[in-house]
């Protein structure tokens, strides 16, 4: 019956397509009723009774039928809505989904300059909005955090998005970069600008060290070995106490200087050099622009690499490794360059992290970090630069928003802390993404070379890579 009603209007005229017949409503109501009954049954052991203690410390059951009724009602409504929606969709004439409509493409054209403009003027905007540079401290700090993840996302995007090598241990290179700067600057007193390239080179070196043994592995096996590599680096940092000071971490790492000019209130400081009054925010703003430049360099280099033979070989490797070999591509070297260049940007970001915090400890480089960076890449749409940036803003910025939802306390009571629901919301958002946009926010691929007309390539044709 349900089958008939849902298919009949598809043959009818398009005008009638969006309306839903009474029989369909009845079906939806029945479905919703069944779902509500099921919820009722399930909630009896889980929800309906709560164990409480009375004055004599004896347990008793407190019935909570009100909660059960609310939950069943909600389920009923949701199921009803979902059923109706599905029927309407089945009834509507099949719409051909273009890979990217002109509107979306226009949006893309605006998005990039808009993002860039906002990113460049962000400290100004933040201080205007909060009424002063000092008041914008929190917002600029958040901006720095987001940009760090944007950069990490772009770095990992080379390995996962372009070359299709699933790397679950990217944080290891972040750690190598951070510890490189921390150790080199505290031991030899080298400046940040000397340590930054060294940190990148060292991270790239470790990328190759990791790359060599795992080259033969594909898919799940590669993911597990990279995961293990990330853990090994973290455990070495904890246990090699003579070098890394173990779990206590390395503190008093030299702060960033304005190309040699320190950000302090002394006579040679940044403020007196430029004849402005000293503010600790100067360093923050400088850090903000530093990470912005680093992130943009990552982006520009990635965009250029994509158009070079090596970038095209990475993408070809993701599409079909056997065909690559038959075309004379040295797959081993190509994979190694992807690992090394991705790791290098992780190393840059790591040394920025160290100079910003002034303190590094192995705790900052746990698996959760790798997972967040990987989610940024997957959420953004593998291989898409804009998507990764948007995903980083959502993944890092949105949890921070939760801290500021004070009004919810009025609704749910004083001891309600929205921050506690962070991972729950995160999980729900991930599930929702996988249902509606399984290829990420930007699901299509831009060709690297065009003969006559630029056409976006539908994500359904692009492979994710398997090792």
């Amino acid at each position, binding site marked *: 019956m349900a089958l008939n009603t849902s298919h009949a209007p598809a043959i009818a005229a398009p005008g009638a397509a969006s309306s839903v017949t009474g029989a369909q409503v009845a079906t939806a109501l029945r479905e919703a009723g069944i779902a509500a009954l099921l919820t009722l049954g399930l909630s009896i052991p889980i929800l309906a009774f709560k164990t409480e203690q009375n004055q004599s410390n004896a347990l008793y059951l407190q019935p909570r039928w009100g909660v059960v009724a609310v939950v069943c009602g909600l389920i009923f409504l949701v199921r009803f809505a979902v059923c109706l929606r599905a029927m309407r969709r089945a009834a509507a004439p099949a719409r051909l989904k273009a890979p990217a409509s002109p509107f979306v493409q226009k949006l893309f054209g605006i998005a990039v300059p808009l993002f860039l403009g906002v990113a460049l003027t962000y400290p100004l905007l933040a201080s205007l909005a909060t009424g002063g540079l000092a008041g914008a401290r929190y917002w600029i700090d958040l901006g720095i955090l987001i940009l760090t993840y944007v950069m990490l996302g772009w770095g990992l995007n080379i390995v996962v998005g372009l070359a299709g090598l699933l790397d679950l241990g990217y944080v290891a290179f972040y750690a190598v970069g951070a510890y490189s700067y921390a150790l080199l600057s505290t031991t030899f007193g080298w400046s940040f600008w000397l340590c930054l390239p060294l940190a990148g080179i060292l991270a790239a070196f470790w990328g190759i060290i990791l790359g060599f043994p795992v080259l033969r592995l594909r898919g799940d096996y590669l993911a597990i070995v990279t995961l293990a590599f990330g853990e090994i680096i973290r455990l070495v940092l904890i246990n090699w106490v003579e070098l890394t000071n173990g779990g206590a971490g390395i503190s008093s790492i030299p702060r960033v200087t304005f190309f040699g000019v320190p950000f302090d209130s002394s006579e040679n400081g940044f403020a007196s050099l430029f004849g402005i009054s000293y503010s600790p925010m100067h360093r923050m703003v400088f850090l903000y622009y530093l990470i912005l430049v680093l992130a943009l360099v990552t982006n520009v280099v990635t965009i250029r690499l994509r158009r070079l033979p090596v970038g095209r070989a990475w993408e070809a490797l993701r599409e079909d490794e*056997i065909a690559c*070999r*038959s075309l*004379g591509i040295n797959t081993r070297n190509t994979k190694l*360059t992807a690992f090394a260049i991705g790791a290098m940007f992780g190393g840059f970001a790591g040394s920025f992290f160290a100079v910003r915090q002034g303190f590094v400890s192995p705790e900052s480089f746990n698996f959760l970090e790798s997972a967040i960076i990987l989610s940024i890449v997957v959420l953004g749409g593998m291989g898409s630069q804009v998507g990764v940036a948007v995903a980083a803003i959502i993944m890092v910025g949105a949890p921070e928003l939760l801290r500021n939802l004070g009004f919810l306390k009025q609704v749910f009571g004083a001891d309600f802390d929205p921050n506690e629901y962070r991972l729950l919301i995160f999980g729900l958002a991930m599930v929702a993404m996988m249902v509606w946009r399984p290829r990420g926010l930007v699901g299509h691929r831009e060709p690297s070379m065009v003969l006559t007309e630029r*056409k976006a390539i539908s994500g359904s044709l692009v492979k994710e890579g398997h090792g």
Partner: protein
Amino acid sequence: MRWQEDPILEVQHLKMRFGGLVAVNDLSFSVGRGDITALIGPNGAGKTTVFNCITGFYRPSEGMLSLRHADGTTYLLERLPGHAISWKAKVARTFQNIRLFTGMTVLENLLVARHNPLMIASGFTLLGLFGLPSFREAERQAVEQAKFWLEKINLIDRADDPAGDLPYGAQRRLEIARAMCTDPILLCLDEPAAGLNPRESHELNELLLSIRRDHGTSILLIEHDMSVVMGISDHVVVLDYGTKIADGTPEEVRNDPSVIAAYLGVEDEELDKVEAEVGL
């Protein structure tokens, strides 16, 4: 017989063993320079295994595969690493189940085939990163070559479409064009006419003949479509159960009783007679 006088590829005593299974057993044949050579045989005869040995996907258990360039340089294919077979020895191949980069455009597919020359022109990425003119020029030439092949296979209008969107016959042609973009001297085609309709397989014949004529590329192909095999090949090698049962011009092979027996089987009463003829 050109394949005896001037062979481009000599397969000598090739043996490929997978555990206990001997897929190819003591196979020797030659491929003539400038010839179109067909490797035929019933399903499971070991044709694709021979291809995989020649193109470096399998390492032969025994035997020698020597490829001789026109200038006399000789490569022992069984000793080269997989990617060097295309880059150094100039042997290109296509696959039985098409292996295009489906998420990349038709043009990009052809440019990937120019990976090694472009890699050198881009100074192994370093010079290319700064967009030096020498790299731009090399890139322009690669695009020109791609355009030449796209015009030849009638896909110039679809250059910016993803390869995965092309119809099956066009994908087959594109795979051949992609292999040709590596400038091979020997092109190995694994069932190029599989799944093509008669008109398409006629076009394929024309394409293969023009590749041989205009580019001097020798062709070795596996094929079941006899109109292709008998129509264009100069030399046919027949495999059955991993051994060679016939080797000669299409006419010779067509009338060879052991080939007929391998393909069609024999009547019970004729069995003794045919076996005597074949020498079993």
